[in-house]
């Protein structure tokens, strides 16, 4: 039982690391990045390419993945998303085209990776082991523990930064009212790039950690996580750090215990049922802002 809780907690942490960046970008600068999963996967793919030439310590693998993720995300923002938004006269068209752009970018990244790996899975050649730790009768791998700790640490740090720092204030302002934010001197473009860089960093970080944790992932792993991220974010409320934390863990726990309870076939429906019900009953989720803009 405790073991199951631990497993669910690790799963939740994975969802959290993956969804956090997406929620931040969506809730503040309003970019819903459909290529977030592809960034997650491709960062890991890049490390795979590097380690196929020379094995590296696990920590380095993860750091490189995070950096690749940040770079990819910044490129996407400056070359595609930023341009789309600058050119758009109307908010809804911009939203749609950012989504389409993301779909295209994802296809490009997934296409490259699939071609190189013949759609098979890939992992890292690390110089470390992933020891199984045991205490009080619970078994957990070092990497699983790391994932959990990193996810919680980043959440706390992010929540504090958003609440206390000037950058965080700027981010929150843009999230509430982008036009007023501009009038107040906030450089939205720079903020967007910074936010996307951080989101990409988190995606790459998650990719690196998960690849080590699962030993291997395949080119479409990221897309599968995308839908889970939607569920976690919508349940928790777009733009809320606490929301995405709660959302990720609730999702993970419900899924884990459904599988345990023998109704595993329906477990994948959990995410979607959550999205659907939350949107109908309380669209802003647990901790989200009430939507200021009426559509």
């Amino acid at each position, binding site marked *: 039982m405790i073991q199951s809780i631990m497993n669910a907690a690790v799963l939740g942490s994975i969802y959290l690391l993956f969804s956090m960046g997406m929620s931040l970008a969506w809730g503040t600068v309003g970019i819903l990045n459909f290529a977030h999963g592809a960034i997650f996967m491709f960062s890991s793919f890049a490390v795979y390419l590097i380690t196929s030439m020379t094995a590296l310590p696990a920590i380095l693998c993860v750091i490189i993945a995070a950096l690749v993720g940040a770079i990819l995300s910044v490129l996407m923002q400056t070359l595609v998303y930023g341009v789309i938004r600058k050119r758009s006269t109307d908010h809804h068209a911009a939203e749609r085209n950012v989504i389409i*752009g993301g779909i*295209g970018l994802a296809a490009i990244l997934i296409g490259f990776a699939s071609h190189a790996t013949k759609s098979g899975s890939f992992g890292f050649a690390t110089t470390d082991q992933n020891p199984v730790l045991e205490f009080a009768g619970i078994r957990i791998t070092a990497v699983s523990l790391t994932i959990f700790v990193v996810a919680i640490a980043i959440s706390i740090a992010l929540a504090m930064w958003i609440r206390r720092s000037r950058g965080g204030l700027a981010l929150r302002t843009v999230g509430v009212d982008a036009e007023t934010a501009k009038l107040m001197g906030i450089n939205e473009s720079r903020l967007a790039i910074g936010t996307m860089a951080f989101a990409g960093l988190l995606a790459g970080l998650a990719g690196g950690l998960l690849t080590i944790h699962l030993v291997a992932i395949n080119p479409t792993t990221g897309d599968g996580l995308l839908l889970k991220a939607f569920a976690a974010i919508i349940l928790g409320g777009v733009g809320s750090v606490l929301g995405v934390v709660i959302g990720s863990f609730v999702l993970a726990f419900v899924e884990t215990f459904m599988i345990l309870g023998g109704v595993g076939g329906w477990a994948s429906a959990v995410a979607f049922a959550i999205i659907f019900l939350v949107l109908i009953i309380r669209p802003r989720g647990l901790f989200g802002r009430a939507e200021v803009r009426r559509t």
Partner: protein
Amino acid sequence: MNWIAANIIPLQATVTTFLLALSFQFPMRLGLFSLAGVGLFGVGAYSSGIAFAKFHWDTWSSVAFGVVVAALVGLLLGLVVARLGGLYLAMATIAFDMIVVVLAGNLTPLTGGYMGLFGIAGKVELWHLGIIAVIVAVLFALSERGGMSRRIEAVHDDAALASSQGINVSAYRLTAFLVSGAVAGLGGALMLMVRNTTTPDAYGFGLIVVALTVAIVGGTKSWIGALIGTIIFTWLPVFLTVVGEWREVVYGVIVVLAALFFPTGIWGSILGVRKRLAERKHAGQRDVVDEMATEPDAAETEFLQTVAGKDSEQ
């Protein structure tokens, strides 16, 4: 007619994808960002398959059954989600689509579970598909003429304005969901009849992505946009067989370029050019731009034109 035989699959796909694209295009034309078409496509396929295999109905009754069931499901969905806006509606409809996949995969006695349905040997010829496509296109074209097209555009551009003109906005939105269901159901049913088999994951996230890009890159203002998108994404891989393995990358590049340079879709860009040409023609006419007299008296109008014409131009 060898070419037709050799390309029967993309030809069939052109029709079924066209119908699927319309199921996305029509709600978007009213301003509803609904992605439910894929799920409804699946509902149409499965209902017609069940009617054919389990109730032993003939081909066309089964197809009709698929259309009706999908239309009703679409309507019910609309009743539940229509008041959601923008991205939230998109999310809810994606969730609906994925729930359809899970139901199809788990209701095994009815749907064949994850193995799906097979042996649905419907008697649907290519010329059937052709006629159906033409009829559907004509119906959509009719909705793009005159008063109906104005009213739909009002609902899309400005719901409060539409209401103030007497248009029942919620009725229009529900109708959009109904139509989306009908046309998606038709597409799904026909596709099952020509393919003979189907599995749940055919209607998953992958198809959502395809349908969305086809509809938006083609242009959501008109059925013509849906057709343009369909032709591009169905036939490009066929003509670029050289691209073969890199198909996904090429597809991705096209989509990104479309998002950047054709924000209203290819058809939307064509319409935009037409409008700009008309505006330029007007500006070229050096008569009255906007100095309009309250009393439409010819002599006074002319006098005002000459006097005020120059400084009233923006």
